[in-house]
């Protein structure tokens, strides 16, 4: 399992594409947070990174399916899936190794945003004037959202042997889960809207970003991860 994990990490950092995707992600975030006047923290005037956390899920919707699209689809396309399946690794181990590798990549992608935190801490007046709990709540929420999207990405990569299709499917599923349910809830009224809202990732994400780590939110997000990883295993078993 360990060697499969490292193989995935190496496959990512062994190709130019990996660095390109990471660089693109960070450049896009950097531009949104610091340069574009409409969203820039500098022109906003408050020591607050709200903008980072509200835009990153949008970027994630594209970034994570791009990272994950090849992870199972390619194995199936090139036939190397047969090598893995006839090895002593079980499907659960294969999926977990690949998922953990993906999670590591997502984490590596988010890690540089800590620099933004220190910058804002320094820019605050007085220095350090920042909603710490809000920041770290959001940051943990962001990692959780990344983890859910990664599970969704693996699931869509398991569904098809076409990488492009896996990407499109991944983007679509992430979009529906994050924005779709909230948008649908806005169209409804009463109890039903409330229930729909509960299924929305953004609802739980926003709840975390208030700085309170609510176990219900964590349970929901972890549940989503297991749901999609379980789905992946079921799909792979049936093929």
């Amino acid at each position, binding site marked *: 399992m*360990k060697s*499969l994990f*490292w*193989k995935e990490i190496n496959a990512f950092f062994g190709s130019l594409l990996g660095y390109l995707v990471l660089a693109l992600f960070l450049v896009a975030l950097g531009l949104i947070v610091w340069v574009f006047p409409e969203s820039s923290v500098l022109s906003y005037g408050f020591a607050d990174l709200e903008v980072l956390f509200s835009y990153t899920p949008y970027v994630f919707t594209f970034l994570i399916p791009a990272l994950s699209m090849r992870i199972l689809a390619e194995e199936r396309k090139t*036939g190397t899936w047969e*090598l893995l399946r*006839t*090895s*002593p*690794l079980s499907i659960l181990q294969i999926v977990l190794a690949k998922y953990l590798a993906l999670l590591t990549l997502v984490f590596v992608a988010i890690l540089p945003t800590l620099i933004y935190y220190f910058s804002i801490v320094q820019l605050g007046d007085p220095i350090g004037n920042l909603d710490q709990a809000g920041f770290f709540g959001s940051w943990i929420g962001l990692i959780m959202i990344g983890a859910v999207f990664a599970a969704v990405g693996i699931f869509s990569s398991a569904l098809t042997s076409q990488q492009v299709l896996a990407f499109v499917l991944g983007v679509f599923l992430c979009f529906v889960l994050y924005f779709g349910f909230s948008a649908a809830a806005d169209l409804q009224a009463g109890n039903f809207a409330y229930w729909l809202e509960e299924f929305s990732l953004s609802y739980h994400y926003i709840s975390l970003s208030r700085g309170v780590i609510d176990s219900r939110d964590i349970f929901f997000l972890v549940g989503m991860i297991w749901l999609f990883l379980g789905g992946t295993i079921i799909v792979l078993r049936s093929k």
Partner: protein
Amino acid sequence: MSLEVSQLTKIYSSQKVLDGVSFSVTPGRILGFLGPNGAGKSTTMKIICGYLAPDGGAVSILGKNALTAPKQVSPLIGYLPEHNPLYVDMYVREFLEFSGGIYGLSGNKLRQRVLEMLQKTGLEPEQHKKISQLSKGYRQRVGLARALIHDPKVIILDEPTTGLDPNQLVEIRALIKEVATHKTLILSTHIMQEVEAICDDVVIINKGKILVADSLENLKSSASEIQLILETEEELDLQWFTQFDSTKFGTKGKSEVIISAPNAGEARKEIMQLIQQRKLNLISLNQSKKNLEQIFREITR
């Protein structure tokens, strides 16, 4: 028996791909699994390796049930799938280290096994190349090295020599023969010469059914009927040959006769006598042995 397959059945959308396939392999012998394309060779091998689940039947490897305990059985098997799938973006050495790691090797033992495999397969000079840069023959060696990295007891090779040039063919065959010592090896092919070159036992399968399962020697001797082809300037009358001991005869042209005889020496004598008696002008007398290729074609037609 190190490998025993009994009554395997596999159905793909109402078509029976395998229909009660049973055979067994003894350790130390190379079994040639022979059949035309689409006969069910790959399907059988995939089932043995645990990649496909059969609709019926059993597979036992070194006494273990391969269908219910795949985790215990898979380390015993070294499998080279058809078309030899590889991670072409990896380096040869990196790939072998990764494959060894999957089978639970690590540290010194892994390094030693990788080195051993590189030497055995002649890949040492290529170990720092990317697999995508290698020729087909060398990729086949990488595939073989991967299949053998964990020192399996049973080796299963699905068409290991297709698409190789004649030199590579000889090299890979020699390699297969070498690695097969003290192991059980099954190899599928649709090339008869391959079976004659390296196998001890033969199983012939067609349309999902086993037609022949025997040793190569038995199969060859059962087919040792010799054909004599006689050609003369004069027209030949089939009546003349009725006095022969030979079992069968037939005409090819007006002045050509094919005689199948269990005892070629006797038949030749009789032919010479006939030529003298009738004062025929002999053009040629050819002798041909029915080879495995013909047997294969007859059986699987």
